[in-house]
């Protein structure tokens, strides 16, 4: 157990190192000369050389990477050329919480709608619930989230006027106003997950309901809801967590689009703006941060297995 955990840790550290090297490589590959950009249009050869030296750009690449990594770990991510803002502050303190709040709320909406739909679909096969689950699964998964967002803005924001169209209010500053602003974006992003969750719930529940212990529970005279929601759902949790974790890439893809459509100042918006402005140092911070997030979620999904399934704990 301890050995397995330390092997996992070593592997994760290696991936983190690769992620950081890739982010650094991106900055090196990016077109344009950072020294030229910082100095503007008018500079002398000596001031150019001096700044190059100060930034450490005249050292070997491996050494530059070492310095960059040390700065990165310390939270010294540089400042934006355009807004003069500290990039760590911008990415971690401002953008990241927005994206995480959006993702968490969408996931919540998707679970609240997806799980009951999947359960109904499994219990009443070929009924309307089953048809709905399949339709949601195919439609929600394929429908481009940025167009769905536009449609929701049009219908609920402009036409009916129920929800604000754009902008973000932090729920930790004004909870209800923040939630009100987040409803449409969260539905847009969550729509993508609903079908997936419904489909996985349905198929895993169908599999579980045929097991002897379910029959035994029924034979003991346990009420139907208990059989399904307690005995059945316990075994649906694992595939559900796996799928949610595996689809994080899709979630982040949707989050970028949703943030841009609804003008939410999250990571997706930050990276998009930075690419458009050719602010590669900010893009790189976004790349590094999403990479870290990705690795962290994969690790977390791995760890939840033991928590969700006692059979895995001994090994």
């Amino acid at each position, binding site marked *: 157990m301890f050995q397995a955990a330390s092997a996992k840790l070593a592997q994760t550290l290696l991936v983190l190192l690769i992620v950081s090297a890739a982010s650094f490589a991106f900055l090196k590959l990016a077109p344009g000369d950072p020294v030229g950009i910082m100095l503007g249009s008018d500079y002398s050869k000596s001031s150019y050389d001096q700044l190059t030296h100060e930034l450490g750009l005249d050292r070997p690449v491996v050494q530059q990477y070492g310095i960059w990594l040390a700065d990165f770990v310390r939270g010294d991510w540089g400042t934006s050329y355009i807004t003069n803002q500290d990039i760590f502050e911008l990415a971690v303190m401002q953008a990241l919480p927005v994206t995480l709040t959006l993702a968490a709320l969408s996931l919540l909406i998707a679970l609240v709608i997806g799980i009951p739909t999947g359960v109904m679909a499994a219990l009443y096969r070929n009924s309307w619930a089953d048809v709905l689950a399949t339709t949601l699964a195919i439609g929600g*998964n*394929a429908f481009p989230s940025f167009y769905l967002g536009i*449609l929701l803005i049009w219908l609920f924001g402009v036409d009916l006027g129920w929800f604000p169209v754009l902008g973000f209010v932090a729920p930790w500053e004004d909870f209800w106003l923040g939630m009100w602003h987040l409803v449409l974006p969260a539905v847009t992003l969550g729509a993508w997950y609903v079908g997936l969750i419904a489909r996985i719930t349905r198929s895993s529940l169908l599999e579980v309901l045929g097991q002897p212990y379910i029959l035994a529970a029924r034979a003991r005279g346990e009420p139907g809801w208990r059989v399904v929601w307690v005995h059945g759902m316990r075994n649906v949790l694992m595939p559900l967590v796996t799928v949610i974790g595996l689809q*994080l890439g899709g979630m982040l893809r949707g989050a970028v689009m949703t943030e841009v459509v609804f003008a939410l100042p999250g990571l997706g918006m930050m990276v*998009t703006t930075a690419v458009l402005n050719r602010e590669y140092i900010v893009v790189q911070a976004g790349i590094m941060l999403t990479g870290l997030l990705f*690795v962290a979620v994969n690790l977390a999904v791995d760890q939840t297995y033991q928590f969700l399934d006692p059979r895995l704990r001994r090994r």
Partner: protein
Amino acid sequence: MSDALNITAIPDSQWKRRFLQPLLRQRSAVAGLAIIVIYVVAAVFAPWLATHDPAAQDLMASLQGPSAAHWLGTDSYGQDLYSRLLYGAQLALIIGFASVALGLVAGVAIGLAAGLMGGRTEWVLMRIVDGLLAFPELILAMAFMAVLGLGTENVVYALALSFVGPFARMTRGDVLQVKNQPYIEAARLMGVTTAAIIWRHVLPNVVSPILVQAGMRVSIAILLESGLSFLGIGVVPPTPDWGLMIAEGRAFITMAPWISGVPGVALAILLVALNLLGDGLRDAFDPTTQKDA
């Protein structure tokens, strides 16, 4: 003896029975295929079907609803939406298939090399693949676009690069499974060259899961392509691209909902069709999922 060597390749009739028939038996997959065929026809014959030059602007005729002159209306530049829709289908399908094909070739090559060579080569190659897989596709594609610059061709390269990881990892996994089978050993002992072993004995055994994966990737590629263009970091105007069209129509959603509606609905239907076909392919190749369907 040649029979013994060919045992790995699936004969034609068996291919039909094992793959084509299960696929055609699924109504949803056939429906998806039919829709895709319509899109392909529209894309191929776009020059003949279009009524206008897709990039021709006519400011006098901007923001018009559907009419006899402009079947699906016009956008804010007076460009004909019907013609742009057709050429947009062409662009989406070309970028979708080209990027997946490129990513597949590069990924399979890396996976084969890693799986067959082993040792240090494998370690280095798989760490590169780990690096690619450590990022969400869209972020990876955005990063590549930032390095490569905007434009249709660069979208293909950026998407292809972001698909290399999954293909490489899959191929390597399959190769490792196949590599130690007795028939590979037998072929090697009989003096079959490594290239022939790869081509005739390894590839046929790894190709079907990879093709299924490719089928499902095409819809992701088209979604990413239109998404990148929507964000303004993909194809550049006035190229008739659905993502660009949706972005352009966004500002006119209350006055002229058809500007984003025409490409939006077209994109959604195509993606649903591709997903239906992709699911069908997966089920047809994987007998374990068939009992549930």
